[in-house]
């Protein structure tokens, strides 16, 4: 057991830091820090992705053969940690972490050859068509239908919570292709061109006042059958694979730490850092210590070729709670100024003075939007069901 990085790990850490020093431009860092929604805008991530792509560092988790970095588990941890510490924008996960792995595992050679490079380059911007108004946690009850007509599917229905549908040119969707058998068995995994006639998008404002998610309507939208991934009716399997991948969700402690430090800084500056708040900050900081150590234990197990076990639900659950605790510290650090509403968006494009300083602007919207963390990607209630089953055999 060794709590120090090896020499080669330290060298890698230095390489990452040097790269960030040289390439992470202040305006990108600023745009990221001024984004109170879950995802950075494409206006922020696109230029950053170009820079990373030039270095070959877009997809740390992908295997080298598809253009991934071929990092060791420790290197992936260092990479993600340094990026979070530096305040780098988060690339959109919909292509890189969601549909990408599905295409890699279940796509045809043609699909791989076409889509994977476009995900790496950012030429395609993806959105996810899973949830529907009637099916939240109970995803398998989805009703948006793809009716076969020759070599096309005709799609009708509606998807909801579609992050960045208004930016995306492609959607991967779970669609109902059959009503026979178990409801899971009638679902197919299909790629949809967002410019297809019959698609319309309704923005949904989040509780924090941001336009991030949408409802997408399909009215006789024609999608080539060749856009299906894998077999018809096997979409549930592919979709579940993706969700597991999503829940595994990499390294989050460094980002939480950086956010907490920003809140502490605000409290220090504004005079709200009472002993009480200082202890609450310490308390959350300990939770972050704990999660960081858990991440390192998982990383170490992976490095040693061991199975880290059913910890991904635990990490998702606790990280979402820690995120909410951090954003709440922020609200309390602002004091009464947490009640100052700035309705304009995006913050990074505001060029006039505002009543709050830039680091303060995002605090309350981040708290409000952060309520979604215990809902999306499997609610905390669902995670506890999973933990009871997977960790305790209940």
């Amino acid at each position, binding site marked *: 057991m060794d709590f120090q990085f090896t020499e080669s790990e330290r060298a890698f850490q230095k390489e990452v830091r040097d790269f960030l020093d040289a390439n992470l431009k202040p305006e990108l860092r600023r745009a990221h820090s001024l984004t109170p929604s879950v995802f950075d805008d494409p206006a922020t991530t696109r230029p950053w992705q170009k820079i990373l792509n030039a270095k070959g560092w877009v997809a740390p988790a992908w295997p080298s053969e598809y253009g991934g970095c071929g990092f060791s588990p420790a290197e992936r941890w260092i990479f993600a940690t340094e990026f979070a510490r530096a305040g780098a924008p988060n690339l959109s996960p919909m292509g890189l972490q969601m549909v990408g792995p599905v295409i890699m595992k279940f796509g045809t050679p043609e699909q791989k050859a076409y889509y994977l490079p476009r995900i790496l380059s950012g030429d395609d911007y993806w959105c996810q068509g899973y949830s529907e108004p009637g099916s939240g946690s109970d995803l398998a*009850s989805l009703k948006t239908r793809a009716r076969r007509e020759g070599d096309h599917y005709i799609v009708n229905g509606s998807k909801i919570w579609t992050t960045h549908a208004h930016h995306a040119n492609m959607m991967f969707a779970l669609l109902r292709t059959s009503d026979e058998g178990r409801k899971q068995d009638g679902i197919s995994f299909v790629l949809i061109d967002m410019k297809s006639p019959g698609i319309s998008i309704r923005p949904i404002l*989040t509780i924090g006042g941001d336009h991030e998610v949408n409802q997408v309507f399909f009215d006789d939208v024609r999608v080539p059958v060749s856009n299906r991934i894998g077999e018809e009716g096997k979409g549930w399997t592919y979709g579940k694979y993706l969700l597991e991948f999503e829940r595994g969700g990499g390294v989050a402690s460094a980002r939480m730490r950086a956010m907490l430090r920003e809140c502490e800084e605000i409290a220090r500056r504004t005079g709200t850092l009472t002993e009480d708040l200082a202890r609450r900050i310490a308390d959350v900081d300990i939770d972050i210590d704990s999660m960081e150590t858990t991440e390192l234990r998982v990383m170490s197990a992976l490095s040693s070729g061991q199975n880290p076990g059913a910890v991904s639900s635990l990490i998702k659950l606790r990280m979402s709670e820690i995120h909410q605790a951090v954003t709440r510290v922020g609200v309390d650090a602002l004091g*009464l100024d947490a*009640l*100052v*509403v700035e309705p304009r968006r995006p913050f990074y494009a505001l060029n006039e003075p505002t009543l709050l300083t830039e680091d303060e602007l995002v605090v309350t919207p981040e708290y*409000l939007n952060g309520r979604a963390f215990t809902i999306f990607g499997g609610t905390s209630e669902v995670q506890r069901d999973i933990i009871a089953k997977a960790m305790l055999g209940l």
Partner: protein
Amino acid sequence: MNLTYSEEQKMLKESVERFIADAYVGRDGAPAFDAAMWKQFADLGWLSLLAPEGAGGLGAGAVESGIVMEAFGRGLVGEPFMTSVVLCGDLIASLGTPAQQEHLLGKLGAGELKFGFAHEESRRFAPLPVACKATRAGAGWRLDGAKPFALDAAEADVILVVARLAGDAASRQGLGVFLVPRDARGLKVETFPRLGGGSGARLKLEGVELGADARLGDDAADALDRAEDKATAALCCEALGVMQAVLEKTVEYAKTRVQFERPLAANQVVRHRLADMAIACEEARSLSLRACLLADADAPARMRAVSGAKTKIARHARFVAEQAVQLHGGMGVTEELDIGRYLKRIVAFEALFGDSGFHLARRAAAETLVA
């Protein structure tokens, strides 16, 4: 000893609730000021409800203002009843001369005069320090200073500004309350929408000159404590209304929303969560009532009741509002449902007049006074 409502209180409750149900519940958008509504409040007598009978009011007390505020919480009312009527009305009644009372409370009751309020100068609510300075200027007064968080000043005709006549910034002695017209020379008002409803403003006062009658009464610290305690008790009742509303909405949703072929409420975890929310509501009802019943008591008893209510209801209300969002799932975290607006109202409730930590410390200190 009788904690059931009197006939008059029941009638008030029914009439306010009926009005709010018709005019407010289910409205879209952020709660903000509506002049026509304010006029109706005046016509219904709510704006003169609390004023002393000698000043043309109905002489009602904190229990009655609590009844109104509970309904206002349920309706997410954006009009500044708490600031104008409960808080500033009480300061005028306790500090003003009979003539000031009659004039100001009369106009307030008629809906012709609305008050804003500017006291604390720290980011986190605290009655001290107050550095904003009042100096003699001829027969009148001159005010200089800044108030970073004035309540409902945007729509106010007159802002009650707390300023220092003597002593250093941390001293309880030497505070005065001044009537500052919204359009006074030297007063800069930067307004903003306040989270959860109403408005706020940053005030800058640079050589604001006021007449001799612009000052309300004498040393104001005790009156401010009392008025702010009454405002806090009223806000506790408002929070109760919010809690009760989101509890009912969430119970309804849990009964009807179907997931995995059964309603959400089929999950024992959801039922127990809702039970805990119901318990929080019941405790908020008891504590807010206790705060109202002791809002006119003297310092340690009043502080214990009001600070006790605020600290606990703040936590209960956050729990209830956040869990209401959680149980509504995706829809809860959008502006499509009013659940989010209720949560914002609670975030505001927590911060106004001292957060949970502030009031727990105040309650603990009040406890020690008695021991």
